[in-house]
């Protein structure tokens, strides 16, 4: 469905989805990495929910990236966007691999080593943040370019 949105709005939405990945992963890393005493039988359910939420936000990030791309393709910045989109795609691919690795670890949690295995997962969860920040930096740099071109607040459908 066509929408009348500014590029600012597209990037706001895109950043919110990246934020969903960052908040969910860094919250789990903090709550159980800094406070191992919080780890109990319910932690596995919490981990499962967090992984589902990260996956959901990952998918939403791609959807928003695609919508953003469609909007920029109609602008004078379309050629420059190709390499930017590629760079974002690379970071998102790393995030996907990280998610796969955490899912793998979560499937192998041992009853006898429950706490250690969860702590190991919190360390992996901490790695999402850096990747999300890399995406944000790429977007920030491109936003500067859009502002200088005078099209950041122009409407695209």
């Amino acid at each position, binding site marked *: 469905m066509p929408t009348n949105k500014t590029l600012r709005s597209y990037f*706001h939405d895109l950043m*919110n989805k990246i*934020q969903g*990945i960052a*908040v969910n992963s*860094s*919250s789990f*890393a903090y709550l159980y990495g800094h406070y191992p005493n919080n780890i109990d039988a319910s932690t596995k359910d919490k981990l499962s929910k967090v992984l589902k939420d990260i996956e959901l*936000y990952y998918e939403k990030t791609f959807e928003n990236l695609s919508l953003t791309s469609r909007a920029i393709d109609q602008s004078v910045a379309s050629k420059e966007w190709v390499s930017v989109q590629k760079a974002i795609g690379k970071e998102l691919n790393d995030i996907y691999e990280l998610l796969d690795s955490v899912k793998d670890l979560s499937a192998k949690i041992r009853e006898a080593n429950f706490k250690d295995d969860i702590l190991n997962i919190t360390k992996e969860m901490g790695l999402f943040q850096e990747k999300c920040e890399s995406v*944000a930096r790429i977007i920030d740099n491109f936003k500067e370019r859009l502002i200088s071109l005078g099209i950041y607040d122009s409407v695209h459908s």
Partner: protein
Amino acid sequence: MTLLQDRKGKAMAKILIVDDEVLITNSLVGNLKMLGYDICGAKNSKEAFEALENFRPNILLIDINLREKVSGFDILKKGLELNPNTKVAVLTGGDYPIQDCLKHGIKTVIKKPIAFEKLIETINDLIKSLDS
């Protein structure tokens, strides 16, 4: 800060977080409650204004760009009217230049994507400043 002081600080702080991404707001509220913070979430300006009246927060964490006519700055203004001692941090995806926030008297800006640990540090700093 000792654990006792930490709990005392948390008890006196009432935090309102305003962000239009509802799943993120819910996740932050749930996780911060787990750590003992008294926190309430709002996903739009209507909920935020209601919370300002009923929950009476003294710490505001606000996303400036709410994708509606009312901006986070309007909520901030109302919050300061109701309680001039309210401490504020702005959450931004970089949509608004930091200079805009400074112009509105906001000294604390947290850039998205927010790391939970950074958010906790910021909240604890705001709690400390409630005393001063």
